[in-house]
């Protein structure tokens, strides 16, 4: 049994390890290095993605390269295709992004505790836990207890409905979990900086293990109403290895009410 000091040290070591792994695995995480690591199999016979994971880096601030701003870190961006770090906005779509950024305190629906959408849920800065079965993969986030069910039963997207977090249908391509996400509304953004999409959003996610405690998350995004072409963002993710790690809660609406009542706690 570790005492609290040891646990704290373990936690620090875990994230130090994560930082080292990030540099060591950078080539595979951002390049074409898939296949260099063979993950253990889970009890469902597929690559084991289970555990508590968290994105590393600035995608939650801005998926696009930009300067720092209030509450937003400077970033070279998470866009790995096309090159250059920028999103392929249609010329008349940039103005809305700029207005979103300027008025983000009011317009970012996450500030009202709304669901963040996909892919933002995966890298917005909260850990999430993955559970696997042969019929679906569950992704449960610490943020607002949101969970995604990724169906693996070859079913098609539902018709005539849309969702904040979309409708997720997945399949295994070797050791990579590939998830097709559609049926979005237009109420969510990609990040804090106002990068946005329409209800024509279509996302294809790829979860690929890159080491015992890391994986690469890629999202290829199409939205012909907003962008001139598809683009791909790539985000490294690391496993929480603290011995007492568990998902806790960020019950956003409760804290907002406490603040509004003059009773922050």
């Amino acid at each position, binding site marked *: 049994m570790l005492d609290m000091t040891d646990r704290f040290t373990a936690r620090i070591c875990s994230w130090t390890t994560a930082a080292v792994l990030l540099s060591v695995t950078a080539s595979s995480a951002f390049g074409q290095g898939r296949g260099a690591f063979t993950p253990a199999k*889970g*009890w*469902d*016979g597929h690559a084991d993605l*289970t555990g508590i994971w968290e994105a590393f880096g600035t995608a939650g601030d801005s998926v696009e390269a930009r300067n720092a701003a209030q509450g937003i870190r400077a970033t070279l961006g998470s866009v790995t295709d096309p090159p250059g770090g920028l999103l392929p906005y249609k010329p008349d779509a940039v103005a809305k992004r700029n207005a979103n950024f300027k008025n983000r305190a009011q317009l970012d*629906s996450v500030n*009202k*505790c*709304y*669901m963040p959408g996909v892919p933002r849920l995966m890298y917005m800065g909260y850990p999430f*836990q993955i*559970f*696997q*079965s*042969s*019929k*679906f993969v*569950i992704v*449960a986030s610490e943020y*607002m*207890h*949101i*969970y995604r*069910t990724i*169906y693996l*039963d070859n*079913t098609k997207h*539902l018709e*005539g*409905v*849309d*969702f*904040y*977090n979309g409708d997720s249908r997945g399949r295994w391509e070797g050791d990579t979990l590939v998830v097709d996400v559609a049926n979005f*509304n237009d*109420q969510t953004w990609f990040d804090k900086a106002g990068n946005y999409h329409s209800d024509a959003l279509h996302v294809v996610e790829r979860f690929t293990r890159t080491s015992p405690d890391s994986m690469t998350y890629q999202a290829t995004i199409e939205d012909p109403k907003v962008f001139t072409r598809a683009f791909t963002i790539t985000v490294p993710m690391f496993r929480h290895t603290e011995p*007492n790690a*568990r*998902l*806790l*809660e960020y*019950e*956003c*609406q*409760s804290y*907002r*009410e406490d603040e*509004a*009542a003059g009773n922050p706690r």
Partner: protein
Amino acid sequence: MRMKNGLFVIAVALGVGIAFLIPTSGNGQDAAPKGDAPKDGGKGGFGKGGGKGKGPVVPAGPMPRLPDGHPDMQGYWNGPAVTDVQAPGRGGAPGTIVDPADGKIPFTPAEAAKIKETREHDAVDEPTLHCFETGVPKNMWIQFGFQILQDPTHFVVLHEIMHQVRIINLDNRPHIPANVHLFQGDSIGHWDGDTLVVETTNHGDKNWYDDTGTAKPQTVHVVERFIPVDANTITLESTMTDPTAYTQPWTARVTLRRANAMMPDGSRDYEQMEFACVEGNADLDHYTEDKGGKKKVVRVPTAKQ
């Protein structure tokens, strides 16, 4: 969903408003679902989350088992909609308490006074109105179904309402530090033969046991026993112990029934839908003041503002 706001209003009306006013059967009196034999033979096992094809997912008979021999309770389930945990419930509903025998919670005098105050003046604090998670043990007793997912070290309950997820760790870990409070509490489980025993501590202070003001103390220690009866039935006994609030432990018993269902169009097995609550919550507008006029809703910008 595209009809989200409308659906939400309906959902809240059904789940809260009507539940608040109309008695329902307090102890899951609905008949077990019937249907054709399963096409997949009701295969259980780790990673076999539910079945395929038309008809019931799991056939009548004993509860399936996982490869490690433990009962396989995976799939979709419904609990009863408990509006009043104590007997007699509204309209004479039987309540859920089997111990003590009178069906009443054995409150200490101080706790009884707190509950009376909550019932008379704090209807606006009903947690579901605020889109809060329902917490343990109420989350197993509410309208809207839930899904169970198991692996060797987790028993996971995925609710449709509030898209709340409850992760029960089965790895004998200690509870989290006592000053950390969670709406779902900290649940740690173990197997006692075929019964899953779950101990939950570290509760939040905004949860009730039911819809009628029976507030739950943060200090309560909840022990739930998930007892498989047959493939489609679980008896759930929840025992609440808290010497600061109750003069003796008390136990509620409800029946969980498997939802062997397809989606309405028959195209696929049942799937839970996204439950947007905060995003469309206009319901608090109906509760600007409680019926005693004593307490007002705390206003935060809502979807309408």
